[in-house]
């Protein structure tokens, strides 16, 4: 008894939906809680008068490092999915950890390396560390910590491939090739009609991101429609790469909604037309879906690149951060080395185990040397 899954059900099986989707309120409360706990902890070791980061500052710092990840990824010329994954890893990490505990400066390199691995863009650790001139140990040190914070879910559902799917379909519609859909609007199931209508679409309005402009003679040909679609695609892709990464849309919306929102920003009439060929007119969810898409589009549109911290602002924040560093997480590399040495990294119970392990190691080394017995002179006397 096969249970048919709709696209929505398929998305609901993902960890992104199950663990990393939030309502705006729950997202805010989660961040607040994390921040408060971190501040609480900071009170224990820091001076009273130190000026801790506020929640807003933390958020902006993380955003700044998302930008940093993007530039670093571009420096490596990695594909866009690595970038998006790494940015999401960082954002997810700082949902349950505060910048006060783990400064993003130390985390973001690890996150990018992890993303390159999970997105199958292979580069050796040595190579990676050399090209961003960092100590390889420092990259590995935070890795387990990051994995824990990610709850060992490495899958990030991204809108890029889906956007290609839309491009594919739109181009086919321009040619009059359409797949059969149930219950869509009158005339949308006729290939030639659809192809005609793509030519008669109103031109994208003021403020659209697309670079396409209607032909000067007012006569829209198939070629123009194709150009329009390609231009909308490129514009949407830029939106997905930039604003989508630097805002919370991945937490609040699904990739499908994000990509359609980006398309809408790029070319509103085209997207509206496309959606009308997808959603049955009498479907009760139709208005809700459209509302969600435009809410997401508003969020993307509201993003302003100038809001991102400048280098100086960042430096200032980090200086303040340095003053209230948690001494226990200060030296991640050392902690990591200690953990690797005795396996557990825990005090007390681990100590004995560590001792035993040390004895075993020494014995092993000795035996390794004595594989062919002690040296001849020693045995001779």
């Amino acid at each position: 008894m096969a249970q048919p899954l709709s696209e929505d059900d398929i998305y609901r099986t993902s960890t992104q939906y199950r663990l990393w989707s939030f309502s705006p309120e729950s997202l805010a409360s989660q961040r607040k809680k994390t921040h408060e706990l971190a501040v609480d902890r900071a009170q224990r070791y820091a001076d009273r008068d130190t000026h801790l980061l506020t929640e807003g500052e933390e958020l902006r710092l993380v955003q700044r490092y998302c930008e940093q990840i993007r530039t670093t990824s571009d420096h490596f010329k990695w594909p866009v999915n690595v970038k998006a994954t790494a940015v999401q890893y960082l954002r997810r990490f700082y949902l349950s950890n505060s910048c006060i505990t783990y400064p993003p400066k130390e985390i973001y390199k690890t996150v990018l390396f992890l993303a390159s691995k999970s997105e199958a863009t292979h580069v050796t650790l040595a190579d990676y560390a050399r090209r961003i001139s960092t100590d390889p140990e420092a990259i590995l040190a935070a890795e387990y910590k990051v994995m824990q914070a990610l709850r060992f879910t490495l899958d990030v559902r991204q809108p890029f491939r889906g956007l290609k799917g839309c491009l594919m379909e739109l181009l086919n519609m321009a040619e009059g090739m359409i797949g059969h859909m149930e219950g869509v609007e009158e005339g949308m199931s006729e290939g030639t009609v659809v192809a005609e209508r793509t030519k008669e679409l109103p031109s994208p309005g003021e403020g659209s991101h697309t670079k396409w402009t209607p032909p000067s003679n007012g006569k829209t040909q198939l070629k123009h429609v194709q150009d329009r679609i390609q231009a909308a695609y490129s514009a949407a892709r830029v939106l997905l790469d930039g604003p989508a990464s630097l805002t919370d849309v991945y937490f609040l919306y699904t990739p499908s909604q994000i990509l359609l929102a980006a398309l809408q920003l790029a070319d509103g009439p085209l997207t509206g037309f496309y959606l009308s060929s997808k959603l049955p007119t009498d479907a009760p969810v139709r208005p809700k879906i459209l509302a969600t898409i435009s809410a997401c589009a508003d969020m993307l549109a509201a993003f302003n690149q100038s809001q991102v911290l400048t280098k100086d602002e960042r430096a200032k924040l980090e200086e303040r951060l340095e003053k209230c560093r948690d001494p226990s997480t200060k030296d991640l590399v050392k902690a990591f080395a200690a953990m690797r040495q005795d396996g557990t990294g825990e005090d007390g119970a681990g100590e004995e185990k560590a001792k035993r392990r040390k004895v075993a190691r020494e014995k092993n080394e000795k035996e390794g040397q004595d594989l062919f017995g002690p040296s001849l002179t020693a045995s001779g006397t």
Partner: protein
Amino acid sequence: MSRQAQSRPQPTTRRPADSEGQDEICPVCKSSRYLTPTLRFLINPECYHKFCESCVDRIFSHGPAPCPIPGCHKTLRKHKFRTPTFSDLQVEREVDIRKKVGAVFNRREEEFEDLRAYNDYLNEVEDITFNLINKLEVEETEKRFKAYQRAHEREITENASLAEQERASFAALQKEEREQARSRREAARREDAEEKRQLEENRRDVLNRLASGQDAESVAKAGQQVHLKKRMDRAAAAERQRQLQAASASNGSGNVVIKGLRAKQKQEPEASVDPFGGLSFEGRKYYALQDDYVWAGVQETKADVLIGAGGYDVGAFTGRALCEAFAGLGVFVGDEMDERDREKMGKENDEMATKGAEVAATKGGNAAKGKVKDVKMEDPF
């Protein structure tokens, strides 16, 4: 004469003098075979002491009586006395014990599925037998023996009757074979006699004809021809006989049963693996896959021999891209997450936050605090 007697070699079958003396004299009445050539010795499997027949009659006719051998206090009954099969009474006893054990431990090789189990069983049987023969741990062994007998009562009787049947059918088979051989011999003899008689008749016929004055040459020829025909008949008969024998031989081999372990029961063929555990992806709502897409990305890939040669189907990409384009379109993250949060207050979710930091803190060597519970790694939902 005396010289001859001396040179005669001792018969090799003779026993050593001392045992002969014991053998030939009844220990109770001291009558010896020398004086009573008809002397018969009997034994009782209770103690395997040997008495002459008249002593047994005399002592045990009036019911059970103790063994007259000094030191042996077994009570013996007359009906248990029998003639020993072996002159060595140790062997006699061993054979008796083996019979007794074999009557109970009568499982067959066919009952076992693997050789190991069968060999283990045989080993157990041999252990018990050995202990009984050599009087080691007699009580415990008897207990084991009895326990087995009680536990397997039904199987024992079943197997015994099965063995009985087999024996009967084997005897019947042998009898039949003997019968067949006899009838074959009979037939051969009869044929022989018949042939001789005909030969005689033929000769007499030729003589008669010659006597009646027929042409000598033609008569001789005719006689020869008859003879030849007879001989051909005989050859045919022999051939027939041989065929008969071959047939019966093959019949015989058809009855031979090759004993061995029980044939392993054929296991149910494994159901084919369903990687999606009964889910199907046919429940699409938002798109219908088309056969072809005009987008250059698809067309170029399709035309590329290098890609196609490896078995890559561009349909895998188009299907996935479209599925991703709409996966989650109808999922309203905000609403659904609110609902979920209301349903089960995701405690673990919230606690995750700074607990992680605390774990790291203890790892870092800050041992001032008490034990901290480790981060829950499993999926909290």
